[in-house]
């Protein structure tokens, strides 16, 4: 896993896939990954971005993001919504 990732968590798999559809349309670099256990006990999927493009948040504005975290290779840090 590359350093300096950003993880986006969603409430439902439907929202994950809505977000993925937008990422694809924007040709954003992303990967769908299992939700990291230390972020949530949820059994679903999260979106990992290789960096934190601010405009992605704008494009996802119609989707409720449950949590946004940065990852430096060792630790997760909650970011502002």
């Amino acid at each position, binding site marked *: 896993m590359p350093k300096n990732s950003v993880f986006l968590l969603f*409430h439902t798999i*439907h929202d994950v896939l809505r977000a993925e559809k937008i990422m694809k349309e924007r040709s954003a670099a992303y990967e769908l990954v299992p939700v990291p256990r230390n972020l949530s*006990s949820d059994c679903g999927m999260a979106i990992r971005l290789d960096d934190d493009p601010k405009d992605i948040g704008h494009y996802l504005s119609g989707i409720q993001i449950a949590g946004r975290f940065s990852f430096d290779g060792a630790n997760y840090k909650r970011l502002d919504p």
Partner: protein
Amino acid sequence: MIYLDNAATSFPKPSETLDYLTNFVTNIGGNPGRSGHTLSLEAARIIFEAREKLTAFIGMRESERLIFTQNGTESLNMALLGLLKENDHVITTTMEHNSVMRPLEFLRSTRGISYTAVTCSREGFLDLDDLRPVMKGNTRAVIINHGSNVTGAVQSLEGIREVIGDTLVILDACQTMGSVPVDMEELKADILCFSGHKSLFSVQGVGALYVRLGISLTPLKFGGTGSKSESVEHPLFLPDRYECGTPNTPGIASLLGGLTFIAREGLSVIVERKQALRRKLLEGLRSVDGVIVYGHEGKGPRAYLPIVAFNIEGKLPSEVGYELNKRSIFVRVGLHCSPVAHQTIGTFPKGTLRASPGYFTGEDDLNTFVEAVREIAKK
């Protein structure tokens, strides 16, 4: 073999239905949204795509509000049992299927709701002006059969808002989806309930409802959703709030195949083909001495689905159905789970035969069917 029971379920299905179903069962097979692995994700993607396409198909945008169910009956139960509370009043019509009448009766006897069934014409049409005098201060919803499974009558809802204001409109579109354009905005519908296995060409076991933004239903079922797993409280988020337990992913995959087929053929082509079959069927049946056809005429603009109820004078529907079945011609006989509709058209309790061609019915099939009816009528 001539299958004329497409109003019960469409048969045969297009190859896309089988291709999507087979691909899911053979190559994917995962439980959608339940795990982090590829097969679970691929299963979720199929449901997502089906949800998005179906939402667009009914002219709506917020696909999370499209809820998959087991069938049209479950969709209607979700809408009625999830919406209605003690002292609520509901208006319905005398053309409804038991999937509306029975939940309403259940709610009347157990939850203290009341309902008024507005009488339709003998052809099965509702006059929207007849809704006005039965509106009450506590009328929560009007539930209407968009297309009759008995006479094929399609209700025009133009002007309904002028009559009922912002009272909720629940539409039972089980028969109309895929047979006529169904656009929730144009129809002013608030909740649309339908099945997938009729003219949307899924296999059996799939239905759906769309719940417009601002309407909250109490779920019928509670349980695992793959989301918010740390909590014992059922999630509030859609679609998970109304969908729990492992869904019928193979069935939903087949529905995606059906929608793909419809998009490829073009809905307008399908509609026109079915109307041509309806006209041919009517012409043939009306040419047989002793055959009584119910509906499919009347004053003013009238729309009908390719569903034709008929009887042969002096014969029971079951006798005629038996004779047709011996000739490998399959129609439905009886009351079609719609006793009030048969009371409305004057065929209760005997019922009728019902011939419902589908997109794949051939003209030759209808010729053979009509000649068989002619032969049986002469006996």
